[in-house]
């Protein structure tokens, strides 16, 4: 029997370690029409300009108003679970903050490159993706710029449960989401302890207290490319992973960014864009802070996330998440088609009280649904105060209440802590 001729020519083949430690390497063929650049198309001068003039800040500060608001619309079950998670997670976040000051516990083997031993240990601990790059201060949050002590970054991705993730949106999937953070926080501390036994410092950047925008550094370390859903798509599990970092003074060799073909693949696939319940994902890429990307509309995403168990439909319906890049890219080379696109098993999902939505159908929400508090806490307080003033002159008592509340917010300050 004649073998079918592949529809696409292969530009290059990416070879990566197996999904778990001990599994064989995999090969990912990248079709000619998907090849672009390693990592992401960037304008370095724009990245620098925005970093200098408009430094990034944690959503937990910049968007604190809606981050407070979500707690008021959680279902009772989610609320209970989130409270429990925060209780478990807090000691891990607390411990991470101070790790940069802990002294090494051995004398270093001067001149020896530590990349391989650290990578091996991280893989043994269970991290599915491990890469090395320079800590890029252009992506550090304004409030954390001075916190980062060491220049080399170890990028760590921990895969979250496969089965639970396919039930998105659900409480079950939230167990995978937050449960993975709990495991990852502990594993990162273990890895940092290990690095200290090699004679070097190790500072843990908690997955729940980010020091900056992590994805660009993961892309620089060759661990994936930015997807149309705004998440890191790594070759084995797409965005079904939670990210943490460790910065260190251990001598390491940096990895290089890789072109997995995903930058163009997402433009052809578009399943996440088409399936997003809130219509928060945008089809066309734009240049944003010096990178070419599909820019998510936060205000259309957050109300759905908050009310429907973290949503995550964009993760669930991503073929790379569900089947892995080796199968998806091979299928694209063979057929010129996106594996799973248009099928109920990939694209279908159920929204509580709204029902099932298969390919081509989306839930409807009214305008009010998307009205949520914006900005920082104090900005939202001002916004509400302004509205009251516009409507009527306020009694002295209410003006005083405003001042007291504002003072309280300013005294508390912002925190970078929170779920990501």
């Amino acid at each position, binding site marked *: 029997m004649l073998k079918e001729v592949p529809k696409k020519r292969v530009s290059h083949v990416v070879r990566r370690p197996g999904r778990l430690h001990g599994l064989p390497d995999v090969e990912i063929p990248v079709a000619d029409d998907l090849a672009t650049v390693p990592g992401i198309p960037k304008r370095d001068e724009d990245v620098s300009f925005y970093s200098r003039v408009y430094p990034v800040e944690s959503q937990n500060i910049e968007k604190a108003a809606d981050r407070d608001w979500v707690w008021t619309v959680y279902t009772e079950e989610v609320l209970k679970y989130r409270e429990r998670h925060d209780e478990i997670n807090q000691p891990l976040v607390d411990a991470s903050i101070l790790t940069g000051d802990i002294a090494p516990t051995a004398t270093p083997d001067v001149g020896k490159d530590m990349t391989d031993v650290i990578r091996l240990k991280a893989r043994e601990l269970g991290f599915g993706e491990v890469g090395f790059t320079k800590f890029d201060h252009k992506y550090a949050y304004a409030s954390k710029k001075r916190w980062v002590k060491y220049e080399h970054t170890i990028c760590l991705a921990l895969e979250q449960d496969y*089965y639970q993730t*396919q039930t998105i949106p659900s409480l079950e999937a939230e167990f995978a989401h937050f449960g993975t953070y709990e495991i990852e926080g502990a594993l990162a501390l273990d890895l940092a302890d290990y690095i200290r036994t090699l004679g070097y410092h190790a500072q843990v950047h908690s997955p729940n207290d980010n020091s900056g925008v992590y994805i660009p550094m993961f892309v620089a370390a060759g661990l994936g490319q930015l997807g149309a859903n705004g998440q890191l798509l790594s070759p084995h599990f797409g965005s079904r992973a939670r990210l943490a970092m460790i910065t260190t003074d251990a001598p390491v060799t940096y990895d290089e960014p890789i072109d997995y073909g995903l930058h163009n693949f997402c433009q052809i696939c578009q399943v996440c864009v088409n399936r997003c319940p809130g219509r928060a994902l945008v089809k066309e890429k734009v240049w944003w802070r010096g990178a070419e990307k599909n820019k998510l509309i936060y205000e259309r995403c957050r109300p759905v996330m908050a009310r429907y168990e973290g949503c995550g439909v964009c993760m669930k319906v991503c073929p790379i998440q569900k089947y892995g890049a080796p199968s998806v890219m091979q*299928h694209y080379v063979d057929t010129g088609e996106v*594996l799973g696109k248009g099928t*109920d098993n990939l694209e279908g999902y159920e929204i509580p009280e709204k029902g*099932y939505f298969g390919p081509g159908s989306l839930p409807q929400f009214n305008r009010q649904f998307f009205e949520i508090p914006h900005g920082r806490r104090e900005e939202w307080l001002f916004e509400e105060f302004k509205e009251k003033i516009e409507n009527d002159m306020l009694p002295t008592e209410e003006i005083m209440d405003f001042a007291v509340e504002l003072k309280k917010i300013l005294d508390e300050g912002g925190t970078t802590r929170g779920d990501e």
Partner: protein
Amino acid sequence: MFNRPQIEALFAELKSEWQGKRDFEKIHRDVDLGIAYYDAGKSLTGAGLDDRALALIEKHKPE
């Protein structure tokens, strides 16, 4: 193409037979991949999928 009732029946059987057992995730992954290949019109023979996943797909596939 697999429709929703067929998918639900397949996964209900997968869960009742395998959830909590060691190979549940492996079979689940291969079922998902197998359904995608089936829906794409690709032969499942020689696709390297787990036999138990193939059996489930064969049992629940569209008439």
